[in-house]
């Protein structure tokens, strides 16, 4: 009896360990916390200064060599465009940044909100990608490697800001398309991204993220009536490289203010932590169950499966 137990136990444990070695890495390395690079750059978007000229959209289009837009960049009708009954424009494979207009009750002027990748300190897209296509560079950009993208689109599900788009129209090389902070052409040489450079209102301020936080709070303190006392992106979801100042509560501009301060990956860590435990405990647990459940039952048609049990009885 003891012999057959040992044999079965070993066989099961070996299979279990094989499974464990195959996948231990996913749990073991999954929990590293990315604090964000200390010298990372960022952009402060002061929505009280934006006039909705959309020259940033045009500059982005040119810099990233994107296809010509359906509506000209100086056509104000773009602000009235909506899809699925009331959804304002969003980033697409042909537009990495978009400015939307919000009419706020009680405000004389509409508020304009520019959207693009916020370049999170701990990006959800990066942590959800199973081929490691995303990189957070030391300059602060979240880069995407389209050479390895399989097209599972989990990053699009994971992104809390709904930023990554996908080139569905391509049959043989569809990839994720999103703002890359002009990293290759500008950021890595210390230059601001194209949209920042072109902005006539200085609504966009490029700089070291830590300095931008100071500047933003300075503006809030100096003009208490002009801004709501909140810098969106300073703390949200672990912090983002692009941050926003607003004159009206952020909810009214369709910012998601329910997401909290923890990065997205914190929600997943519970499961990732359970993985190595299951891998380590299950083999012994279930082999143990097997031994308990089949103890003294070998007369009942079980023998046929194990014709060699006499071997070990000596």
């Amino acid at each position, binding site marked *: 009896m003891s012999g057959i137990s040992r044999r079965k136990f070993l*066989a099961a444990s070996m*299979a*279990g360990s094989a499974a464990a070695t*195959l*996948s231990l890495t*996913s749990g073991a*390395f999954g*929990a*590293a916390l990315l604090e964000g690079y200390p010298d990372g750059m960022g952009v402060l978007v002061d929505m009280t200064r934006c006039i909705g000229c959309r020259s940033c959209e045009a500059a982005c289009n040119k810099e990233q060599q994107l296809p010509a837009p359906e509506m000209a960049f100086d056509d104000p009708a773009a602000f009235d465009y909506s899809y*699925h009954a009331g*959804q304002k424009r*969003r980033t*697409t494979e042909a537009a990495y940044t978009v400015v939307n207009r919000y009419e706020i009750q009680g405000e004389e002027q509409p508020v304009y909100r520019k959207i693009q990748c916020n370049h999170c300190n701990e990006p959800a897209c990066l*942590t*959800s*990608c*199973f*081929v490691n*296509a995303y990189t957070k560079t030391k300059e602060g950009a979240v880069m995407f490697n389209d050479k390895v*993208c*399989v097209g*599972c*689109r*989990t990053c*699009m*599900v*994971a992104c*809390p800001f*709904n930023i990554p788009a*996908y080139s*569905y*129209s*391509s*049959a*043989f*090389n*569809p990839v994720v398309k999103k703002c890359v902070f002009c990293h290759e052409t500008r950021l890595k040489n210390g230059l601001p991204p194209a949209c920042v450079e072109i902005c006539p209102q200085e609504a966009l301020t490029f700089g070291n993220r830590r300095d931008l936080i100071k500047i933003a709070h300075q503006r809030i303190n100096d003009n208490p009536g002009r801004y709501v006392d909140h810098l969106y992106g300073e703390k949200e979801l672990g912090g983002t490289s692009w941050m926003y100042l607003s004159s009206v509560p952020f909810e009214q501009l369709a910012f998601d203010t*329910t997401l909290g301060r923890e990065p*997205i*990956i914190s*929600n*997943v860590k*519970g*499961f*990732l932590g359970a*993985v190595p435990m*299951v*891998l380590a405990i299950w*083999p012994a647990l279930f*082999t143990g*169950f*097997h031994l308990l*459940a*089949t103890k003294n039952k070998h007369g009942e048609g*079980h*023998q*046929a499966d194990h*014709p*060699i049990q*006499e071997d070990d009885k000596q």
Partner: protein
Amino acid sequence: MKAIISRGFKPIDSPSPENSARRWTLKEKLLLGMTPRQYFGQAVCNPFNWVLGLIFLIGIPLLIYRFAFGLGSVTHSSYDYPWGLLLGFGLFVMVPLSASGFLLGTAVNIFGRHDLHHIERLALLNGLLGYFFAVVFLIADLGQPWRLPYPMFVAFGTGAVLFLVAWHVSTYLSVQIAEVSEGFFEWMGWPQAVKFVKRITVGLTVSAIILSTLHQGALGALFTYAPGKLHPLWYAAEFQWIHFFCSSIAAGLCMVIVVSTIIKKTMAWRCDAGFLDNLDAQTLTLAKGACMALITYFAIKMLAVAHDNEWAYLATGWGLWFLFELAFGILVPLVIMSYGIRHKRAGIARLGAVATVLGIALNRLNCALIAFNWRLYQEVPHWAEVMLCVTIFAFYIVVYRAILYRLPILYSWKAKEAHAPEAVRERIPFGVSVRPSHHQVFRTRD
């Protein structure tokens, strides 16, 4: 098929024709012992095949069209709903319904419930095919499916949940192939291979439990990346993976009940007496297991609502939809199956099993599509995407049926050498078998 059987035809269920020393050729085995004319005659006469033919007539060109012109040609190309019906149904519904393999494997080989062995092979096959076709759905949905091996060999996103799913599903597919291969080796007449698979059964089963626990759970954990998108009633950061794992137990067991019911109604000629006579009792046993999983699932769903204090959501429209899912996907099947078990009425338990399968499928569709982006808008899948799903599912049925027709899943292979006296306990070195009868088989197989 039934007509041919009623005329006295007997499909192949043993290595050689009755009262004959010669063995069936592979071609004869593939045609079940019919002549090609007979075989295609019965296939053409089957109205179900006409339906399948119609589906393929539209679906196969559509599938080619999808690969020639990209996903944009058959879906809404939604940036907000990156996962459509192909994954919402094909991956998230098919995988829990295929949990049957590891469940029955565990019951029989780990817990020693040998009374369930008549249905074990069906459950293993159901698992294998479900996973295989989940991968087919995935291939149809991936932007660049030819890069599917990348997470294995090229680029490693080791911290990602999907990395774990990719590795576990592919490993588990191989484990399932090994498990199902026992029947295939019997059918081919390779007894040494059969013996080898039997020897590693416990090891295979334990790895199946590990891999299933983790990837069934991982499919749930995928949604924990989207706290702002999935409705809070369906979202539970801590419990999501346990919800998915627990419900997959009920779904897998009930899927076996549903499939075996369809088989009993349409394919009784292929089942042996052992399968048919034990089916009612086994259905009730499976239903018992499913009931335990369902009641646990209900409890942990309520725990999740309590844990995140989401009671207020229950009074909203989404809350009603959530309660509908709980009522018709968990409680109603639970009551029906319990009644069936209590009164030993397999037919009623089967009804409950159908309700369970639909209920768990609804849960997965809710997570992936319906309650997803609840603050944005509702995505209605493109007709072509629906048609692609129907087509791939039809492929699944065709392959499923073809294997059930042939391999000893529903019947026992009447191989003479399989009945070698068990009393003869030879001392055989591990992995080597030297029974004379095996040589016999090897010499004479085709």
